[in-house]
């Protein structure tokens, strides 16, 4: 039941792009085409889940016991950067086809604030379950990270679909490109507001 709550909350209610404003740059940058949006979503999904698990363990077994939690920011970003690099190398060796599909997105992910944002959120924020709240355990954190990245993918793919249609329409000159895209995201976010309060 708790896992279900986490999943629904992370995908719909607190959607990472539309409600938490994380990972906006790549969201706007690569959502021109449905296929690239899909590829980016997959890569982000992979990295967010992996990074959250690794940073959670580092925080729990290295930073907390030694009283070094003030180093969270710097430790997490280095871990994420190293992780992305490692994923790139491993993917290249193990599955060249997957590497070709995700490869170009991987370097971009280090500076995607969604990854660092989720990692920091998981270890610093209490999550509400009904009438109580507690810090997430490793299992819950993993599920949360995975569900959040699914929410990222959902927002990205939906938005790419809208943008493909926008590209075919006459838009006033000053609205061309990003402005009309931002306004469309705004309307999408308005729709997602309807989910608030269901968990």
């Amino acid at each position, binding site marked *: 039941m708790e896992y279900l709550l986490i999943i629904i909350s992370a995908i719909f209610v607190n959607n990472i792009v539309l409600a938490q404003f994380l990972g906006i740059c790549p969201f706007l940058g690569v959502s021109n085409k449905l296929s690239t949006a899909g590829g980016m979503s997959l890569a982000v999904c992979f990295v967010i889940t992996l990074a959250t698990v690794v940073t959670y363990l580092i925080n729990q077994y290295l930073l907390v016991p030694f009283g070094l939690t*003030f180093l969270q920011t710097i430790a997490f970003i280095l871990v994420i950067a190293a992780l992305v690099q490692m994923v790139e190398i491993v993917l290249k060796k193990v599955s060249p086809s997957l590497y070709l599909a995700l490869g170009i997105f991987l370097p971009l992910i280090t500076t995607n604030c969604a990854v660092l944002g989720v990692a920091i959120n998981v270890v610093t924020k209490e999550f*509400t*379950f009904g009438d109580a709240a507690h810090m997430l355990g490793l299992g819950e954190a993993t599920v949360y990270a995975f569900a959040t990245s699914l929410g990222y993918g959902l927002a990205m793919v939906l938005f790419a679909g809208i943008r493909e249609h926008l590209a075919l329409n006459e838009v006033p000159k000053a609205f061309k490109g990003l402005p009309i895209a931002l306004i469309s995201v705004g309307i999408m976010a308005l729709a997602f507001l309807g989910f608030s309060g269901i968990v």
Partner: protein
Amino acid sequence: MALCLTAVCLVCAAILGVTYAATKAPIEAAAAAEAQASIAKVLPDGGEISEEIASDAEGVEGYYVQTSEEGAVTAYAVKSSTGGFGGLLTLMVGVLPDGTVYNTSVLAHSETPGLGAKCTEEKSAFREQWKGFAGVLSVKKDGGDVDAITASTITSRAYTKAVAQAVALVKSMEE
């Protein structure tokens, strides 16, 4: 290459170590002052306030006891939380020994701005009604004496529930 990275990391670690050592005391002082202020706000003036006492009552994380100079208990400040509309709603509730609410304040919330978040506006009618509240602890819609915030019944119910938890704890201790 490796030498350069090591050097940069060492320098940065030194800078951070120094900053951390220099800011540790002020950060702790700020946190303590904030906790003190939130307790003092919901209690009558004067008297000695105890250290936080942990509690395993429902929704209550801990409480503070205020005693007069003669050693009699004059009030309790209870940290009580429950699920609101957007997340956990945590209150500090000042309760007199007879179960009357003295005052309340919001410690943490994630309610909707402009709707449920109005429960944080100190001078609002919703917040004023809690001063000296001794009626039935549920919103009027549910047959109680609490005036809910317009269009924010869920937040009002949660707020009321958190207060009720605090009052229940004090009543059980006074018995």
